[in-house]
């Protein structure tokens, strides 16, 4: 009974006749069309990549290739905080061989289909690109081969196991494979005495990679898997999934569903479970200000803090490396777009912030050690400086490393992420700790996970 039967073109044509009495409407329409087209172009450009700061002549550019939009949009800004802080500290210490270092970014949207054109655009517009950081599990499989063929060194945050045994010359990784994180989450559940586990992982590549290792580890640990829900990260509610989990009566939920998915799920579980949260075990990706803020808002800060644990790589919480790192990040506090939310100190333990800081320092020191910004010349020095050589002096910051190199000494860099030990595939997995949040959003270490514990649950 309520239906449009008139063709739109017909209606428009009629209106055009009615308005044909003067030239003004036509000019106005053209002007508005041009404005709209320009705005559309700007909008589409915003979907792609955008420089975070200029990379002028003579400068060296580090690029943050990560999601800045979509469900994993919190990752890109976290890495950018690290990039801006690190490059700022490098520049304060005199730069790299007389070059200033700057950061740029490419928004992958956490989707391989969007990541490839974004990286293509980045490579085309950044002739002085020296290093790529980021490349999360969402997009690594798509972009790593492209960046590798461009002969650009990258420090990636992906945990995908395909990089455990596939050699890319220019690929480096300071984080463990995802299956190790699944084992670490299982050990946390074991330590806390949980017997019945529910899984709730997002349907993105980066989250799904945890599921099978977790299923295997839960069985090996003698625990029972009572629910396994895959969450569509674009969905707006998970009520039915939450009710299935509540009805399964798990002792704890292992989860990684970033963006609004996990906070929404937590809130709905709390609501359906008579106002009580079920304990949550998250991945290291949950250690970020954005995640804490969204989750705490959804279920209440104290309830979230009391019911949340996450695995995280062991990072320094004091000492010279930690001090240099925190000073570097604090210097850019409030200056990085989209990263001003929540408790800034959470970045001090965010895996992306810590390990990419180390990766960038390693790269910059390698350039100085090689006396060249030519990738082919400085790349071999990454492992040399990271793993060290006999007689090398341990340095804990870029500035200290430069001083020792200028003094003619060999150095071994040990940043806040601890010492590195690169294998043949340029992987340097660290060791795990157990993190919790305080009600104020500060991260605290509540325990450690030993290699023996990981081996005991590994498949």
């Amino acid at each position, binding site marked *: 009974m309520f*239906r449009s039967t008139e063709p739109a073109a017909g209606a428009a044509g009629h209106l055009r006749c009615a308005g044909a009495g003067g030239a003004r409407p036509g000019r106005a329409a053209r002007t*508005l069309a041009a404005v709209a087209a320009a705005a559309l172009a700007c909008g589409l450009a915003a979907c792609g990549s955008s420089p975070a700061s200029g990379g002028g002549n003579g400068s060296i550019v580090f690029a943050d290739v990560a999601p800045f939009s979509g469900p994993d*949009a919190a990752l890109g800004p976290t890495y950018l905080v690290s990039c801006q802080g690190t490059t700022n500290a490098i520049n304060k210490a005199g730069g790299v061989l007389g070059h200033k270092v700057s950061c740029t970014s490419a928004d992958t949207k956490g989707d391989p289909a969007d990541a490839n054109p974004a990286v293509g655009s980045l490579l085309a517009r950044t002739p002085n690109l020296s290093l790529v950081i980021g490349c999360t599990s969402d997009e690594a499989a798509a972009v790593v081969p492209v960046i590798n063929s461009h002969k650009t060194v990258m420090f990636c945050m992906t945990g995908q196991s395909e990089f455990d045994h596939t050699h890319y010359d220019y690929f480096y990784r300071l984080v463990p494979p995802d299956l190790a994180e699944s084992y670490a989450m299982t050990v946390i559940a074991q330590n806390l005495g949980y017997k019945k586990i529910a899984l709730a992982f997002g349907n993105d590549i980066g989250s799904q990679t945890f599921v099978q290792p977790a299923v295997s580890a839960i069985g090996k640990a003698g625990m029972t898997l009572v629910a396994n829900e895959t*969450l569509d990260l674009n969905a707006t509610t998970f009520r039915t999934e939450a009710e299935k989990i509540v009805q399964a009566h798990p002792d704890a939920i292992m989860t990684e569903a970033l963006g609004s998915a996990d906070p929404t799920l937590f809130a709905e579980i709390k609501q359906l479970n008579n106002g009580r949260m079920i304990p949550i075990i998250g991945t290291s990706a949950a250690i970020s200000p954005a995640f804490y803020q969204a989750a705490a808002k959804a279920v209440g800060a104290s309830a979230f803090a009391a019911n949340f644990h996450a695995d995280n790589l062991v990072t320094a919480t004091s000492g010279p490396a930690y001090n240099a790192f925190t000073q570097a990040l604090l210097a850019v506090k409030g200056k990085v777009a989209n990263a001003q939310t929540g408790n800034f100190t959470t970045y001090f333990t965010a895996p992306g912030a810590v390990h990419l800081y180390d990766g960038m320092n390693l790269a910059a020191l390698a350039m100085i050690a090689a006396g060249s910004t030519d990738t082919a010349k400085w790349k071999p020095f990454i492992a040399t400086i990271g793993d060290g050589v006999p007689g090398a002096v341990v340095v804990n910051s870029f500035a200290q490393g430069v001083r020792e190199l200028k003094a003619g000494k060999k150095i071994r860099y040990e940043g806040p992420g601890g010492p590195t030990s690169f294998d043949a595939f340029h992987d340097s997995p660290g060791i795990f700790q157990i993190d919790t949040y305080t009600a104020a959003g500060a991260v605290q270490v509540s325990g450690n996970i030993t290699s023996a514990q990981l081996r005991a649950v590994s498949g």
Partner: protein
Amino acid sequence: MSIFLASVGFGLITAAVLAIAAVGFTLQFAVTDVLNLAFAAIMTLGAFVAYWINQAGVSVWVALPAAMAVCSAISVLLNFLVYAPFQRRGSSPITIVIVSLGMALIIQFGVQAIVGGVNVSYTMGQGTTLRAGGLILTTVQLVIIAISVVVMVAVYALLRYTKLGKSMRATAANRSLARNCGIRTSRVITITWALTGALSGLAGTVFAIDIGSFGPTSTDLFVVLILAAVFLGGPGHAYGAMLGALLIGIATEVSAAYIQPDYKYVIAFVALLGVLSLRPSGLFGARA
């Protein structure tokens, strides 16, 4: 059985939110001839307007009318500055659709530029959880369902009993004829943009209340659900959109109870394709 009944209840709340948006969208399309894909982006804007007011210590229920007013004004401006000039130039419907897609991106990324890529929540309680016969709903969800029912009745009354509603129906049916009959169609169209813009603000705010945690991209999939509900009911049919929303809402939640949940929208769209293959014009459209 209990998970089935629970999922039906969850489907009702999803349908309630979807119905407000779908009715607004289809009214807008019917009267203005613009398939406005920016509708969901304006919903997001409305949700954030309510959020900003809420952060100032004001109840989100008080902020809701303000969100409706802002979205109403934005919608009128969107038509005045963008869509109407394109229509005056005789742009084809597909051109308008592409323009609206561009506007959706501009609004969405504009909001993201302001708030960042983070998710936020209103400062509010969800009320008491009520359980009855397997249904599990909070008092806030019941309020949302009540709002939706009131909106549906109001839209029915508007279209059925008021002069404006009749003018809207006439404009939708045949704009030229309506104008020749003395209806000031341009005014009717502007009022339609204002009304449907207000509905988008209302839908955006109750959507954000319902999902608990939301961000600039939260309505990305919801716009597809709106389109599904609209086309299931028959594009341009307000009552069809109501029924479409109900079917899509319940189908997604019930299917999530029995299959891998990330396929729940696939099930809904399979149902949509099934219905459209039998009735290409939708449930309320003319028979093919």
